Structure formats: structure tokens, C-alpha cells
């Protein structure tokens, strides 16, 4: 960044203001992380924040593969899980040998665990991209997950490996018993990892990873071996996933086979994709949303996975760029000053869309209760619906059918308003 101001015509040429805003965003993020537990100080919310922090590191590491290098992995949790197991074993070893290594350094060992396995299997895995890579990643994921139940001495079988984070040497007098201290430990590693992963995108390797994503064939003709690029990216992704796993091991004081499995791999893919792979902050949004939903939905509905599926399909179909893509789409309009012309049509379209969503929820919950033999009332926005009453079925049908028809009409209007606004933005030179 030091040479930015002397540049002839580099990307950082018009940079003074941009730089300020850039560091401002990061600083704001750090401040939010510091202040958050002071505002929401209950034990439950501290645990939630900790889980979200871990999920963010994990999702960002996944995006090194998916968004940056174009590698769709179905087995990324392997590195997360092995990071967790490594962290647990190292913590137990520190306690039994009395080594002077305090807890805050443990995630680094988790990272090394994730990295070690990536170095080992990555070369073979990244020989090819595309479907071949996806299939091998699935295979390796299943292989390691099933090995974890067989190799009991290493993985502890069904029970997993437990540890006691408070038994490690203290640092700054912190025992890391209270959740608030664990939260700050996670927040610290989140900031360090996020900065490191962002910095990685700005290096020669990071940019060539993008080139490999876009066109691996062409990369060979500008001097690069795409296999090496993919391998290095894979190692970095494994390292940061291992850090996330190490943080999880600290938070839960256990590592078990669930850490490494297909569900965990699916969740991180899910979070990253929903958040948006094209922007660095996309996976952050995705990890926050998915973790929050996971924690929130499980307590209100028994079929929460179904809702996950619907959200995922919705995003894939209507906003392949994820939430980040949706947000960034509005940027040129905002700059051109034509965004306000779209907002009224949004407000109109939201009403039937919410009605449609409510109808769908009623249908799902009614069916779920019938098949589950349950009769508890469906509580939607404070209104109780009796799942056995025909009135509920009629309400659901009206909401679904009416909502769908009206939503279609109103979203068409949004599209038209959008086109007009985009034309304005194009005329003013904010949109290519």
C-alpha cells in the first residue's frame, strides 16, 4: 500500500479516499466485534456469536476454493475436523507434559493440522478441476469421516476426543473458562484470519487463482501451471479451515466425527454460496445468516432443513450471486442516484412475496404436523393456526395462490423499474 500515492496509473492511483473507506470498513468490523458482547451479554448470545465467528472463518476459507479458484469441494470439513482433532490432541499434550503454551496459540495448531492434510492429499486432488475435483473431494471426505469412527485411538470413536481448555497455562491471567473470554479469543482469530485471507486475494498467487478460475487453459500460456496454483490455494484453504476447527475445539472442548462429515461440508458450501462467492464479504454474510438460522429455526420448527433447502434453491434460481451479489447489484444505481426510482416497486412487491412465504410455511407446517402425528398450533407472527382446521388449509391455499400470482405481477414491475434505473446509471457512466 505504501507506493499507492506515487503510482502512475495503477488501480490504487485514485486511492486516498478509497483507502480511507477501505480501512474504515475493517475498523468498523473490529469495533463491532469488541462492542457486541457488551450490548448482548447473555450467555446464549455469546455462544451464538462464538459459533458465528467460527463459521465465518470456515466459510471464508471455503471461498478461497469456490470463489477465488473455482474449485467446488464437497469435503472441506475434513480440514476443519482434522484441525479440531489436532487442537484437542495438542491441548491434552500440553496439559499432560506441562508445556508452556497458552490457549490463544491453539488455533494455530489446528491450522497446521488442516494444512498438513491438505499438503498430503491436495496434490492428487487438484490435478484436475471441475467435476473430477468435486468427486475426489467427496470421496476423501467420506474416507476420512468413516476412518474417524474406525481409528479409535486418534479420533476417539463415537465419543470423540474431549479436552479442558481451562487446564492450559494462562495468558494475561485469563482462564478462558467464561464464554466471554472464549468469544474474544475467537474474535481475535477471526480478525487475524480474515485480514490474512483478504491479503491473500491481493497477492500474485491470489490473482492468478482468479485467472485459473476463469480460464485454466489460458493460464498455461502465460507461464503458470494451473495445478500448482490450485494446490497452493487448496493448502491455504485447508490451513484456515483448520484454524476454524481449532476454534471450534476450544469452544466445545471436544472434537468428534461430526466435525469432518458431509453435513458439515454441506453447511459451509451452503453458507458460502448463499452469502455470495464473488465478493470477499459474501461468505461472511452467508455464515452469519446460516448460523443464525440454524440456531433460530431449530427451536421453532422440526423441519428446519426443509427451509434451508428452499432458501438455497431460491438463491440459486433468483440470485446466483448470493446476498453479496444482490447488494452489490444496487451499487451503480446508488452512485448514479437512480436507486430511489426502484424502491417503491420493491415495497409493493414485498407484500405479496411475504404472503406467499407465509402460505408456504403454513402448508409445510401443516403437513409436517400431520405426518408427525402432532397437533400443536402453528404460530406465525403471533397468530396461532390450528393445523387440523380447514380454515387454516384455506388460508394457506389463498396465501400461496394469491401471493404467487400477485408476486409475479409485482416483480415484473420491479424488473421494468430496474431497467429504467439501469439505463440512467448507464447513461451516467456508472454501469458498463
Amino acid at each position, binding site marked *: 500500500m505504501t507506493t499507492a500515492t506515487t503510482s502512475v496509473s495503477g488501480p*490504487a492511483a485514485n486511492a486516498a479516499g478509497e483507502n480511507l473507506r477501505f480501512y474504515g470498513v475493517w475498523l468498523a468490523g473490529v469495533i463491532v466485534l469488541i462492542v457486541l458482547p457488551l450490548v448482548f451479554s447473555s450467555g446464549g448470545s455469546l455462544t451464538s456469536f462464538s459459533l458465528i465467528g467460527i463459521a465465518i472463518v470456515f466459510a471464508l476459507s471455503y471461498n478461497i476454493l469456490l470463489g477465488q479458484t473455482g474449485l467446488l469441494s464437497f469435503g472441506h470439513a475434513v480440514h476443519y475436523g482434522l484441525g479440531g482433532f489436532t487442537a484437542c490432541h495438542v491441548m491434552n499434550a500440553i496439559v499432560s507434559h506441562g508445556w508452556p503454551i497458552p490457549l490463544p496459540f491453539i488455533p494455530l495448531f489446528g491450522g497446521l493440522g488442516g494444512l498438513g492434510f491438505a499438503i498430503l492429499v491436495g496434490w492428487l486432488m487438484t490435478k484436475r478441476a471441475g467435476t473430477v475435483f468435486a468427486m475426489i473431494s467427496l470421496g476423501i471426505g467420506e474416507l476420512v469421516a468413516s476412518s474417524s469412527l474406525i481409528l479409535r485411538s486418534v479420533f476417539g470413536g463415537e465419543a470423540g476426543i474431549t479436552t479442558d481448555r481451562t487446564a492450559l497455562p494462562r495468558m494475561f491471567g485469563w482462564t478462558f473458562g467464561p464464554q466471554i473470554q472464549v468469544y474474544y479469543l475467537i474474535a481475535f482469530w477471526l480478525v487475524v484470519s480474515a485480514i490474512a485471507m483478504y491479503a491473500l486475494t491481493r497477492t500474485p498467487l491470489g490473482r492468478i487463482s482468479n485467472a485459473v478460475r476463469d480460464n485454466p487453459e489460458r493460464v498455461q500460456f502465460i507461464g503458470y501451471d494451473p495445478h500448482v496454483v490450485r494446490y497452493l490455494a487448496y493448502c491455504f484453504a485447508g490451513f484456515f479451515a483448520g484454524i476454524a476447527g481449532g476454534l471450534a475445539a476450544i469452544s466445545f472442548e471436544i472434537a468428534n466425527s461430526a466435525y469432518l462429515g458431509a453435513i458439515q461440508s454441506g453447511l459451509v458450501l451452503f453458507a458460502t454460496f448463499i452469502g455470495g462467492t464473488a465478493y470477499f464479504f459474501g461468505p461472511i454474510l452467508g455464515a452469519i445468516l446460516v448460523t443464525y438460522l440454524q440456531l433460530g429455526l431449530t427451536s421453532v420448527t422440526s423441519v428446519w432443513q426443509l427451509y434451508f433447502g428452499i432458501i438455497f434453491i431460491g438463491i440459486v434460481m433468483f440470485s446466483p450471486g448470493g446476498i453479496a451479489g444482490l447488494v452489490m447489484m444496487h451499487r451503480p444505481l446508488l452512485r448514479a442516484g437512480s436507486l430511489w426510482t426502484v424502491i417503491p416497486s420493491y415495497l409493493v412487491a414485498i407484500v405479496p412475496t411475504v404472503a406467499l412465504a407465509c402460505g408456504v410455511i403454513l402448508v409445510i407446517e401443516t403437513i409436517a404436523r400431520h405426518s408427525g402425528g402432532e397437533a400443536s398450533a402453528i404460530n406465525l407472527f403471533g397468530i396461532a393456526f390450528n393445523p387440523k382446521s380447514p380454515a387454516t388449509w384455506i388460508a394457506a391455499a389463498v396465501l400461496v395462490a394469491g401471493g404467487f400470482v400477485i408476486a409475479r405481477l409485482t416483480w415484473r414491475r420491479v424488473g421494468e423499474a430496474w431497467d429504467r434505473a439501469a439505463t440512467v446509471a448507464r447513461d451516467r457512466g456508472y454501469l458498463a
Partner: protein
Amino acid sequence: MTAAIEVRAVEKRFGNVGIIRDLNLSIAQGERHAIIGPNGAGKSTTFNLISGHIKPTSGEVRLNGDVISGLQPFEINRRGLSRSFQVTNVFARMTVWENVRSAVLWATGHRYAFWKNVDSLPEVRERTARILEDIHLTHRRDVPAGLLTYAEQRELEIGITIAGGATVVMLDEPTAGMSHAETERAVSLIRRLTEGRTLVIVEHDMSVVFGLADRISVLVYGHIIASGTPEEIRRDPKVREAYLGEEAH
């Protein structure tokens, strides 16, 4: 002086089908050499064989005296041979600036570095800026390459090809699909940018070929039937029969 490119008795078969038979070609350093021939003669295959995109079944290819047949494309590129593609082949989601910069990174020695900020490498920045000037795309630097017009993408393609400072530049139909004005622009661009380098070009447009090339080779059914100066090629009866004659009708 050793030839920039020396192709000796190269054959390429796909299964039982011989696409290239007994290909011999010698291109001197600093020469502008055009390869012409009817559709399906194997011009692009010849390019792919020389640049390492596909491996010859037999025979050898030398670059500045060293055998390069059998090497990977990136190894050949690192030895100073760069090529473009007939179908535009850029990094679609990256900006014009990033496209050219990617092609500069290896040559400036930054390779797989993950400890350097790519934006603060002065020599990379200067070289990228100079190439953007050269290909007249400075005003489009922040546009994703996939959103450029066709002619602009072709110019970017040339920019990426020469960015690494290769001594041998191979262009596969650089003016294909261009209008007359765009073609003229592209030719003067190619002439200027390949000054002092060896140029190998495949081209269908005969005005481009005869205006640009020092020497021409005519490829018919995977075999070079004639090689010489534009004047010699124009007079060659075999060529007139096999190729130019057909064109004239």
C-alpha cells in the same frame, strides 16, 4: 544463427487419422512468418503442436535450438514463446487491467508469491500500464473482460500474448471476424508490438498476410507444400493450384 522455431518431421495422428504429416518448418529469428492454407489444413493444430497444447506423435520442435516438444505449455511459455487463440480466450470475470497484469506476473519474477501485495509492485504496474496504452484499452481498464466488444477482446488477447515479453509470438487468426477498419487497426498494432520479435501468424485475410509477412508457408492437408517470400509464394504453381487459385475464382 539458430532458427527461432525449427519443426522437424512432426507427425500428429488422432487415432488412425493423420492430421499432420511430415511437417518441416524453419522460422528465423526476427522473421514475420505467416502460415496459410485452406480450412482444415491443420494450421491451428500446427500452432497447438508448437506451443505444447498438444504433443506430436513423432518428430521434434525446437525453440532457439532447444527441444521443446513434449514440454508443458507453461514450460514452453517460460522459455519465451507466447501464443494467442483463434477463439477469444481471456479471463472473462477479471478486469482488463487484471487480465494483462496476470500475463506480466510470471515474466517479472513474481510467480506464485503469496507474500507480496500485487498492487504495489512498481515494475508490474508500469509494464501493465504500458501494454494497455499499446493496445488502446487504457480507458477500459476497469471493465470485466467479458463485457468488452469483440474487437476489444481480440486486442486484449494480443495484449495478454505479448505482455510476458516473449521473443516468439504466435497469433492465431488475430483479425478473424473483424471489420475492414478494425482489421487495419489490428495489423498496425501487431506490426508495432512485434517489432524486434519473431512473429508466427495464421491468417485467412490475404491482404493481411501479404502486407505483414516476410515469409509465408502454405499448409495443405497437414503438409507444407511451399515456403518462401510473398513473391515466391504468389508465383509458385503448386500454391496457385492448391490454394490461391481456388481463392481467386
